[in-house]
C-alpha cells in the first residue's frame, strides 16, 4: 500500500474549501487502497511532518495562495516528492492573473481586455485618476477581481463608473493588484482537463441569483449546472480548443480547470485558470468527470497516478 499525503487547509481565505476538497480526496484514495493521510501545511512543521511520514507522493488539494502559486510545489521539489498538478514555476504564472493573461494573450488565446491597478501605483504614485481612463478604454460593464485569489473572493461587477473605486478597493483587500476586465455577457462554462482522459464534457454554470459568487459556488442548490453545457457542437468544440490551448500556453500539468465566457457571437473567452481545481461536493471538475463517465474515486486515482508515474 502506498502512503500519500493529501495536502489541504493552508492559510488562504480558501482554507475551508480546501479542507472540504482534501477530505473528499483522501476518502476516495483510501477507497482505492492508498494509505492517504491528510496534511495541513499551516499546522505544525510542514517539512518535518512530510519527511517523518515517509510518503511516496503528494496530492495537492490546496486552494489559493501558497497552494496554487508554486510555494508549496517548490518545497515538494526540494524534498524530491512527486506531487499532483502543475510545476512550481508554471503555478506561479497561472495563479497570478496578470501574468496568466499576458501568457494567454501571447498565445492568441482570447481573454477579455483588461487593465491592472496596483496598490503601489495608487499609494506611492497617486495613480487613482487612471481608473477613469481604464473605464473609458475597456467600456462598461466591468469585472474587477484580485490578481491573486480564488473562489470569486473579492470579485465585483461594475455597471457604473462611480462604483469602480469601491470595487478596486474590494479586490485589493485580497491581493496587491486588481484586474479590471471587460465583462463578457453570455453563458459561463468550465472546462475540466485531466491528462490522459478524453476531453471531458463542459459544465454550464447558471447561478440562481445571476452571479457566480462565493455563496453561489459553495451553497448546494444555489447554482444550476448543465453537463454537457447547452451549447452548439461548434461552440462547445471552440471552448474545448481554447481550454486546451490555455493549458498548453501556461504549461499546466496533470489537471486543470479553465473557466470561459461565451459571447453573443459564440466566441469563448478564457476568464480564469485553476491549477488546483476544487474537489468539493459542489465543485465543477468532479461534475465534468462524472458527466464524462469518470466517477470521483477514479478521478482522484487517475490524478494521483500521474504524479506517481514521476516517482
Amino acid at each position: 500500500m502506498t502512503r500519500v499525503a493529501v495536502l489541504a487547509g493552508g492559510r488562504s481565505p480558501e482554507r475551508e474549501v480546501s479542507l472540504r476538497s482534501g477530505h473528499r480526496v483522501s476518502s476516495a484514495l483510501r477507497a482505492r487502497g492508498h494509505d492517504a493521510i491528510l496534511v495541513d501545511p499551516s499546522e505544525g512543521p510542514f517539512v518535518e511532518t512530510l519527511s517523518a511520514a515517509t510518503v511516496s507522493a503528494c496530492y495537492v488539494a490546496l486552494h489559493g495562495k501558497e497552494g496554487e502559486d508554486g510555494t508549496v510545489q517548490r518545497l515538494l521539489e526540494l524534498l524530491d516528492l512527486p506531487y499532483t498538478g502543475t510545476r512550481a514555476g508554471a503555478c506561479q504564472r497561472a495563479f497570478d492573473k496578470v501574468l496568466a493573461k499576458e501568457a494567454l494573450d501571447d498565445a492568441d488565446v482570447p481573454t477579455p481586455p483588461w487593465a491592472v491597478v496596483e496598490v503601489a501605483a495608487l499609494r506611492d504614485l497617486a495613480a487613482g485618476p487612471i481608473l477613469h481612463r481604464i473605464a473609458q478604454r475597456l467600456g462598461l460593464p466591468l469585472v474587477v477581481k484580485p490578481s491573486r485569489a480564488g473562489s470569486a473572493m473579492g470579485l465585483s461587477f461594475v455597471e457604473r463608473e462611480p462604483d469602480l473605486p469601491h470595487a478596486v478597493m474590494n479586490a485589493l483587500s485580497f491581493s496587491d493588484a486588481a484586474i479590471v476586465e471587460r465583462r463578457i455577457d453570455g453563458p459561463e462554462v468550465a472546462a475540466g482537463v485531466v491528462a490522459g482522459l478524453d476531453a471531458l464534457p463542459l459544465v454550464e454554470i447558471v447561478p440562481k441569483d445571476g452571479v457566480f459568487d462565493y455563496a453561489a459556488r459553495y451553497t448546494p442548490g444555489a447554482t444550476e449546472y448543465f453537463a454537457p453545457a447547452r451549447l452548439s457542437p461548434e461552440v462547445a468544440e471552440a471552448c474545448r480548443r481554447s481550454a486546451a490551448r490555455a493549458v498548453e500556453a501556461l504549461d499546466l500539468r496533470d489537471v486543470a480547470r479553465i473557466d470561459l465566457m461565451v459571447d453573443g457571437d459564440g466566441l469563448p473567452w478564457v476568464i480564469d485558470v485553476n491549477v488546483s481545481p476544487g474537489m468539493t461536493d459542489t465543485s465543477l471538475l468532479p461534475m465534468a468527470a462524472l458527466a464524462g463517465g469518470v466517477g470521483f474515486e477514479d478521478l482522484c486515482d487517475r490524478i494521483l497516478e500521474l504524479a506517481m508515474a514521476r516517482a
Partner: protein
Amino acid sequence: MAEFTVDPYAERYARRAAGMSVSEVRALFAVASRPDVVSLAGGMPYVQGLPAEHVLEVVESVLLEHPDVALQYGGGQGSALLRERLTMLMAEEGTAADPEDLVVTTGAQQALDLVGKVLIDPGDEIVVEAPAYVGALSAFSAYEPRFVQVELDDEGMIVERLEEALVRGARPKFVYTVPNFHNPAGVTMSRERRERLVALCREAHIPIVEDNPYGLLRFDGDPEPTLHSMDPKNVIYLGTVSKVFSPGVRVGWAVAEPGVLQRLVLAKEAADLCGSNLNMLITERYLAGDRWRTTLAGLVSTYHARRDAMLQALDEHFPADATWTIPSGGFYVWVTLPDYFDSANLLAAAVERKVAYVPGTAFYPDGRGRERMRLAFCYPSEERIGEGVRRLGELLSDEEDLYRSLSG
C-alpha cells in the same frame, strides 16, 4: 444533456431554510481562528479565569452524589433548585422573579428560538435594534418575520424612533432589546429610555423581550433597573450563565407570564425533551455558596482591564475620524469608520495581517453596517488586544491612503 443537481434536496427546502447560505466572511473566520491571528472577533468568555479546582470539585460532587439524576432525563422546565439559583442571579440586579415562572433553556440562544417559535407567524413584524445581536436575528429569521429596525445611540434604543414607527403603522408582535452592554454596540439603555420604552409598550400592548446576558459584567457606573423589574407582566426576560460561569454548560433561561411560560416549556420539550441534567446540576452546584462571586469579581476586573487596553489602543492607533462606543461593561466596542471603509471587504486584508473582527454587516438584516466593526475585548490578553488594534489601525491608515488616491 443532463441538468446536474448538486443537491438532490434543492427543491425540497422549506422557505425558512432557503435563505441560509455560506459566505466569504464565514470562510475568512476559518483562517482567523488560527493562533497567530489576534481575534477581536468572537465573544468568547475568558473561561481560563475560572478556578479549575472549584469546577472539578463541583463536577466530582455531582457525579458522586447524584449519578442517577445527572445521567438521566429530567423535566422540561429544569429542576426547582436550579431555577431558584437562577432567580437569585436575577436578584443580584434587583429583579424579582418566581422560580415557577422560569424555564431553563440550552443557553439563552434556545430561549430566543423558543420565543420565535411561540410568538412569530410568517410575515409578522418584530422590532429589533439597529444594530442587533446576530444570534437573535438568525434565531428569529427561521420564523420568517419582517424586521422593523430601530436605531440606537449611546443611550440605547432610540425610543422616539419606535414611537414614530408605531405611528407609521408598524404593529410588531414584540420588541427585542439587549439593554445592558449591547451586543454589538456596547451601549447601555439610559433610565429615561427604559421608562419610556416600558410605558410605550405597555400602552401599545407590545411585549418586550429583554435579553440580558452581560448585566452582571459592569465595570463602572450604577446599574440600571432591568425592564422586567419595571413591568414584569409585559416583559419576557432572558438570562444565561454563559458569562458569569461557562458557555460550555449551555444553561440559559426565560422568565415569562404563566401563559407564555407554559408554551415555552412545551416548545422546549418538543425541541429537545429537556436540558442536560449533568450540566444543570453542575451549574446549580457552582452557583451554591459564595465562591462564584469572588470568581466573577475577578473576571469582571479582567474584562475591565481589557476594555481599558482596547480603548487606549484605539485612541493611539485608529484614524482620527473614526468613532467608537465606550462600554461600561460587557464584551464589545462598536466602531464607526468614515463611510468609504467597507469592513466586510477589508476582513480579508485584516486576516492577512493577522487580526480579525466582525464586520458591521453581520448585525443588520438588510446589508447595512459596512462602515462599522465590532471589536471584542473579552478573550485576548491586554497585550494581544493592543497588538491587534495596532495591526488594524495600520491597515485602516493604508486603506485611507488608497481611498485618497482613488478619489483623487
